[in-house]
Structure formats: C-alpha cells, structure tokens
C-alpha cells in the first residue's frame, strides 16, 4: 500500500513539474483584414456654421455729430439658448428672412428674443449736449447667408430759454437729415488777396501764410475799411484780429454751415480674435472725435456700420467704415454722398437745379434733402437773393458701391414710436475691411 502511495505521489509531483515546465503553445495565425469602413458623413459648409459670439458697441445721435448716447458693453451671442438682456443681444436663427423695410415686423419676423439696452451719454466733452435718447430695443437674427439687426429708439425735444426770453430748440424729436445745410450769410462779406493785409495799412505783413486765407469773412467792405477776421485756425493768436485795409470784396461767396447734425446709429464690431479690453473706448473716440482719444493698437480692425438719416438712408445703406491704428477710413467703394462744402473759399460746388433761391428764409419748409446727384448743377455765382437768407444742401446724395455699400438698411420714423432701423449684411462679404460672421 505504501508503494502505491509513493507511486501516486510521484505521479502528482511529475504532473506538477510538467504543468509548471510545460511549453506554451505556438502563436496563432494573424487575423483577417478588417472590412471596408462605412462611407464618411456628408460634407458641411464651414461658412454656414453658427457665427462666433462677439462684443459690439452701439452709438446714437440726435441732430448732432458727436452728442453720442450709446452702449459699449453689449454682448452679441448666437447661442440658441441665450436670451436677450440689457447687456446681451441674443441672435435668433431665422427660417425666413425678415423684411428689411424699417417697419417693425415684431416676433413674426424676428423671433421672440429682444434686448432693451441701457444707454449712457458717452462723450466726455462737458460742452456737448446729451441728447437723452431712450428706449433702445435691439434684435438680431441670422441664417446661412446673412446677419440681420433691428433697432428702435426714441428721441426727445430739448429746448432752452435764452437770455432774451426766447425758446431755442437744441434737439428735435424729428428725423434730422440736414447735415451741413449751408446758409447764405447776408451779414458778412469776404475779401481776397489777404496778403495785402498789413498793420495800419502799411508796414509789416500780418499774415504771410496765405494758403488757408484765400477768402476771409469780414463784416463790412469799402475802401480803407476796418476788417475784422473772426478766427484764424492756423494762427490762433490772431483771433478777432482787426486791421485797416484797402480791399475789394466778392460778396457772392459767403456760405456758412448752418446745421451739422443728423440722426445716426453706429454699430462697432471688432474683427480681432482677442481684442484689447478698451477697444470700444478707442473706437468711439476715434469715430466720433471725442477729446482725448487714442489710436487703436496695430493689428486691430474695427468694422463700423454708420447709418445716417441724411447721408446714407436715402440710398438704403449704412455707410461702411473701419478703424485701424491709422484712424478711421471708409471702406473701399463709391461713397453714398459727396461733400458740397469746401472751407477755404466757402463756396458750394453744386446747387439744386431749381437754384438760385430754391430754399430761402421765406420758404423754410422746402426740403433740400436728399439732394440727388442728378438734381445737382454747377454753382452759380450770381442770382442769389442775399437779403432773404438762402440755403444750399451741404452734401450731394450719390450711388454707393463696393465694400462701402454692403450693409443694407431701411428705416422709418413716427413721432409716437421714434426710429425703426433694420440692417442686413452678408455673413461673408469677401472684403478684407469687413468683419466675418
């Protein structure tokens, strides 16, 4: 029996040794090649993805060039889940494009999202009037090809009582289109040959640089007249200079800028991926000529859509500009208007075909604007009824083109509801001076 136990023990031991020392089997054969993968997904048009969120700024004026009410911290988001707030303009993806007609199509056209934006007076110059524009409502939308914006806002009348007891209106709650309306100044005269001006009628020349002073306004004209020069920009020390001179006047060339402002809405977009923190401060200051402005750093390009009730509205665009470290410049293309006023000689280049005297103080209701290019004829030096105070449009409306004309706009004004402005632009204009959505 003991022997059998020994045999079993040996066998088990041998089995254990064999199990421990037994060789591993050979590796198997390589597997078969996998099957052909499924076809890829359909391509997508990268240009039709949701646009990137970005900060924007909005500025508004009423009958003014730089009395700007606005907002510098409005976040434009294309996030579908975002809702409009005072500091957030949430864009809706639109199935059907809105009608760009300046009429509020409400939610039916724009969707539910809207922002009631808080405005602040932005010009640091204490001498500039706050126009107190209010109730700015903004909406935004987009589709595969375009972005759309809606703005509505209201204006107020601001009237002051002057020392003589009369009320003077500073800003009106009306559509102000009269940018640089020129007024025939029948109280002043001008002279030429300013270089003949000499102190006391002889002796040392008072002004040697005649570049700017080909024409100078004076109050009266005759031989040996006391001539008072209102201001001399290049030599401010000669302000209100009076000299006695023997001059010859040409009284046909006396036009002064009568009104400067129009109603405007200006939108700023930054084209940089990582804009400097104060880019909107710099952009506002540059575009509206605020005091103390500084240039943008190199490499930044701010896209500016400047809608003006007089300058761009007649041709259904917002004037497209951009700001770089070199300052503000219009985008490439033909402008929507031509300046009709050149300071050195105070002479309009054009007048309405019904001029001279199409609009005078006797018919102030005559509307000079829009002053279409095909209504413009060369300025006549004669025929003006000087005692009536005549007016000429300070700019001529023309047909814009190119990158300057790629922001479409339409507006309406009602005294009860104020301005309604709608804008539309292609997401990609393929113009280097435009921001891409």
């Amino acid at each position, binding site marked *: 029996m003991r022997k059998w136990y020994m045999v079993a023990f040996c066998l088990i031991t041998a089995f254990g040794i064999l199990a421990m020392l037994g060789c591993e*089997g*050979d590796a198997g054969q*390589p597997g078969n090649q996998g099957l052909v993968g*499924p076809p890829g997904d359909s391509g997508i048009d990268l240009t039709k993805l949701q646009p990137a969120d970005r900060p924007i700024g909005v500025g508004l004026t009423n009958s003014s060039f730089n009395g700007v009410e606005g907002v510098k911290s409005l976040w434009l988001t294309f996030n579908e889940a975002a809702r409009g707030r005072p500091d957030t303009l949430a864009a809706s993806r639109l199935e059907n494009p809105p009608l760009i*007609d300046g009429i509020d199509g409400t939610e039916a056209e724009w969707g539910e999202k809207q922002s009631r934006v808080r405005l602040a007076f932005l010009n640091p110059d204490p001498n500039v009037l706050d126009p107190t524009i209010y109730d700015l409502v903004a909406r935004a939308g987009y589709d595969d090809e375009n972005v759309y914006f809606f703005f509505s806002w209201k204006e107020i009348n601001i009237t002051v009582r002057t020392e003589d007891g009369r009320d003077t209106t500073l800003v009106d709650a009306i559509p102000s289109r009269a940018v640089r309306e020129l007024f025939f100044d029948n109280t002043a005269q001008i002279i030429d040959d300013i270089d003949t001006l000499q102190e006391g009628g002889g002796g040392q020349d008072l002004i040697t640089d005649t570049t700017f002073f080909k024409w100078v306004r004076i109050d009266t004209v005759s031989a040996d007249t006391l001539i008072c020069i209102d201001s001399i920009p290049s030599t401010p020390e000669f302000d209100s200079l009076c000299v006695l001179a023997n001059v010859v006047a040409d009284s046909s060339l006396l036009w002064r800028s009568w009104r400067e402002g129009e109603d405007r809405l200006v939108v700023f977009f930054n084209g940089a991926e990582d804009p400097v923190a104060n880019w909107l401060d710099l952009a506002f200051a540059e575009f509206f000529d605020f005091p103390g402005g500084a240039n943008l750093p190199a490499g930044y390009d701010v896209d500016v859509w400047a809608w003006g009730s007089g300058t761009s509205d007649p041709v259904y665009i917002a004037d497209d500009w951009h700001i770089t470290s070199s300052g503000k410049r219009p985008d490439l293309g033909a402008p929507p208007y031509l300046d009709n006023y050149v300071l050195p000689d105070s002479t309009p280049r054009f007048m309405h075909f019904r001029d001279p005297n199409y609009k005078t103080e006797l018919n102030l209701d005559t509307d000079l604007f829009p002053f279409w290019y095909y209504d413009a004829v060369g300025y006549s030096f004669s025929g003006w009824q000087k005692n009536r105070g005549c007016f000429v449009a300070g700019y001529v409306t023309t047909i814009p083109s190119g990158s300057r004309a790629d922001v479409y706009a*339409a507006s309406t004004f009602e005294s009860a509801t104020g301005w309604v402005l709608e804008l*539309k632009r292609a997401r990609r204009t393929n113009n280097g001076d435009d921001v891409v959505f």
Partner: protein
Amino acid sequence: MTRKTFKYSIIFLAALGLFGLLILAGCEGVSGPRGDNGPPGENGPDYQDPTPENRFFSLAVTNKSMAEHNGAPKLYLSFDGEHTAAGDTVVSVRLEDTDPVPAVDGVDGGSQEWAGPATTVKLYKAAGTFNFIEAATVRSAFDEEYVYFQVKWTEVANEQYGLEVGLSDRPAYLIYPQGGTGNAAVWDYEEGNEDRVLLLFEITPVTRYASDGCFVTCHTDDEAIERNYHATRAGGEWMDVWMWGAALTNPTGYLRDQYMTSSPSLNVLDDNGLPLLLSNMTLERDNLGVITRRQPTYQALGDPNLNSSYPLWPWQIVRVSTSGWVAGSQVPAFISNPNPSNSAGDVEAQGTFDADSGTWTVEMRRARRTGNGDDVQF
C-alpha cells in the same frame, strides 16, 4: 484477468488520465497578431446645398397691352428630378460643376446651355381680352447659388383686336397738350404699353394658391367682388412678383422685383431698396382730387421737343424747361436707374426680340436665397 494484469491496467489508466489532465492543463498558445485594419471607407458625398422644394408658380405674357395678358395661373416647378417636363410641370435642372452656366443674355442656347428640357405650357386669357398668345416655353435650372429661368413666346397678330407682331416698347409718356403755352400746367399722360412677362411665386403660403393659382390674387373680372384684384386673401400672405418689360426694365439688365400683400390699397409694392424706375412726374391735385399740375420733372439734355425716349438715364437729364414746348412733344414718365439696390435689384434679366419670328426670349437669374423678406427663397 490476473491480479497483476489488473494492476497494470489500473496504472495504465491512471497514466492515461494524468496525460489527459496534462493536455487539459497545459498552457494554450497566445493569440495570433491582430489582422491589418481594413481600408478606409469611401469619402462621404461633398456638401451640396439642399435641393429647393418643388412649388407652384404663375406666368403671364402681354402683347403691348398690360391689361390684356394671357397666362398660366398655376404651373408646377419641380427641382427634385422626379418629374417630367410636360403639361404644367416645369423641371428645374440641377447644374453640375461640369455643366455650363446659362448666360442671361436673352439668347436661347437650347438644351446644351440649359442642361435640360423646356416645357411648352398652355396660356389662357387672364385679364381683359384674349391676346392670342396660347403657348410659351419655359426652362429652368439651378446651382448652389442661383436659380435661372427662360421664357419664350411668339406674338400673334389679330387685326380685330389691334394686335401686331412687333417690338412694343412704349411705356408711359407725358405729352405736351394741344393749345398749351410755355410749359402747360397739366400735360397729357399716355399710359402707353410694352411687351412684358411676369412670374409670380408664393413668399408665404397663400390661401387657395395651390388650387387656383394666381387667380386667387387677381382678375375676378367682377368689380362687385370686394378685394377682387392684386391682393392676397389674408394677412401675412405674400406673393413675389417679377415683372420684366421690353422698355421699362430691359435696358437696365434687371427686372422690376415687387411683392403683393393682402392689402388691395397697397396694390403691388416695389421691393425695398433703390428702385429700378424713378418717377419723372410732378403731380398735384386740389381738394376735390382734380389734377392741377402734371408735368415732367426732368427732360433730356437738349429738349424741349427732342422727343426723348426710353431709357432716359439719370446722367442724361436736366430740369424741365419752362418754355419752348410745342404740342405733342413727349417726355418719358420714368427715369431708368441702372443701379437698383438691395431687394429691388436682385433679379437680373435680359430679353431679345426676333423680329422675323415675332418671338421674345427672356432670361432671368436670381440668388436662391436673397435674405430679403420680400422675396421667395429657393
């Protein structure tokens, strides 16, 4: 079996069992290496703009008189390639990258240019009297950006109805009146007329358009029926109206893009933007509605009495002269604008007239999606 044999049998069986256990317990060889990846699948299809939805549209053509036009009030425009160009179905063919792009020049390049067949559609009296144009051929094509149309029709003469085969390109004029002196306050207004073609599309769904076509918006020929023409039937229902005219629009290279709402008082509105046509008429009425002044605002350089004609461009005009006019002198009632903008200028069109056959060929092109609410989107 002896005891010894039995013992060896047991030992043999035990050894055999151990051997079996060894086989069972022995280590298995490792798996072979993973086979090579299969080849990548084929590329997915390139991005392709969605095919436009099939839709109904309307067609009308005139011979001289706008008020008397024949039309097809409801045609079917098929983009999906699943219909045949026949009857009232116009097939719009997708242009592939290798296909030529149809030139919008009013010259029929045939199937080679249009990559697809034409449909000869039957025309019916739509308004006024029958103008005897009973058929037109229509082609359409589209690519990722644009949709293209071509309409051809041949005029028919009818002496009884004053219809002639020929180029009619005399739209509205202001005519200096008989007996006027200097610059008479009220000039005669000649309605005039021209050869025209119109296409109409739904911008938003229009009640009964799918059954009645454009008849639902116009021409019941019954003045007693309220809102009987040029309006849709309910608020928010809009129609896109493309009107090409031999004189009013053809020289500009565009057609007059308009839209119709449910307001009959508004009639048909020009699309937004700088319009294709600028009025050249100063019109004033008294309290009773009587016209007290109707004069041209502008005249052509060199007038009076030059008898200027269409197109009269903005760079050719000066203010109208206050004197020197003689009876019968004419001035166009519209100034042609070569730069319509925004939605007013988004349909390019060009037509040519073959005087020998009396056939008009008008070709049009528009972006599929204009982003304008007053346009149909394809």
